[in-house]
């Protein structure tokens, strides 16, 4: 806080709302609110991670066997796709800070494209689960390799239930993220962001990076439980 009296509200920057002292306070308030929301998201996903941990320790054999049927190269490539999308988001925030409108729009569109590629690959993987009868329900059947310890069908279903719940909730967050970035891109195209005011880009970016972090944990926990050579 400076000693000089606050500047008259009449002369403030167009993006400043009257109940904030200056742009920095306004920006910090928005970002703090987003971080609190992300805190609730951590607890939301935390519940599923907890269920996963308990069942993984109880039924390790089935979780390991189920994990080995997931497509490792595709999972790794999809992780890389999400990391690329996080890069374009980080660079788009930078473009907004510098006021480069066309670069901002290009990076935002690239982010949406990466997000859609991730979702497309995810849909392909889910489809694989249907043809392999790995979707929990009446037609579930886990065909095991002869070298493995006997796999309990019910316990294997718990692994795939958690797989679908966790990747499904993550994909739902991705779909919402693509929607949010659609709106942000439209706003950027209309020239709504300036170096002084681009908080929506930043806040949407925080959300996107958070969803990326969830996947950074989901990838090793679901795909890499037990990939060591056996026998």
């Amino acid at each position, binding site marked *: 806080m400076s000693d000089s009296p606050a500047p008259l509200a009449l002369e403030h920057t167009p993006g400043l709302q009257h109940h904030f002292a200056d742009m*920095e306070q306004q*920006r*910090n308030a928005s*970002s*703090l609110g987003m*971080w*609190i929301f*992300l*805190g609730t998201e*951590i*607890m939301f996903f*935390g*519940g599923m*991670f*907890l269920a996963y*941990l*308990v069942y993984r*320790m*109880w*039924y390790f054999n089935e979780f390991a066997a189920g994990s080995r049927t997931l497509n*490792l190269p595709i*999972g*790794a490539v999809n*992780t*890389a796709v999400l*990391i*690329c999308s*996080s*890069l374009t*988001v*980080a*660079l788009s925030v*930078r473009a907004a*800070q*510098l006021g480069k409108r066309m670069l901002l729009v290009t990076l935002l569109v690239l982010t949406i494209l990466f997000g859609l590629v991730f979702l497309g690959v995810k849909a392909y993987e889910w489809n694989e689960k249907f043809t392999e009868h790995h979707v929990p329900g009446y037609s579930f059947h886990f065909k095991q390799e002869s070298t493995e310890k006997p796999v309990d069908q019910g316990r294997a279903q718990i692994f795939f239930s958690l797989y679908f719940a966790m990747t499904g909730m993550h994909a739902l967050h991705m779909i919402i993220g693509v929607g949010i970035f659609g709106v942000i891109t439209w706003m950027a195209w209309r020239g709504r962001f300036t170096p002084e005011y681009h908080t929506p880009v930043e806040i949407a*970016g*925080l959300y996107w*990076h*958070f969803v*990326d*972090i969830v996947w*950074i*944990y989901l*990838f*090793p*926990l679901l795909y*890499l*439980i*037990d*990939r*060591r*050579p056996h026998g």
Partner: protein
Amino acid sequence: MSEHILSSKLYWTIWAVLICLTGITAWVSTVDLGPLNTVVALLIASGKALLVVLIFMHVKYTSEKLTRVVIISALFWLLILLGLSLTDYFIRRPGLAGGA
């Protein structure tokens, strides 16, 4: 006072590190390290998450201390959720909780 504008070179470097770590974690999972496989996978994931939070999400450069308080509290709550629940599940008499 004003916000930090990071160089795009830094973002590209972090991106390259994250891609490399993804490759490493996929490869190291196929090497037999015994119980350490899970530990290594989680350490790499946490390292990646830390890079994203500090650089991509600008937490390293924020002047707002409240943001850090919120993040640390959120992680602390997560620790309570996981830690206390797991001790509850695993110190019960076998059979009571339905586990093997």
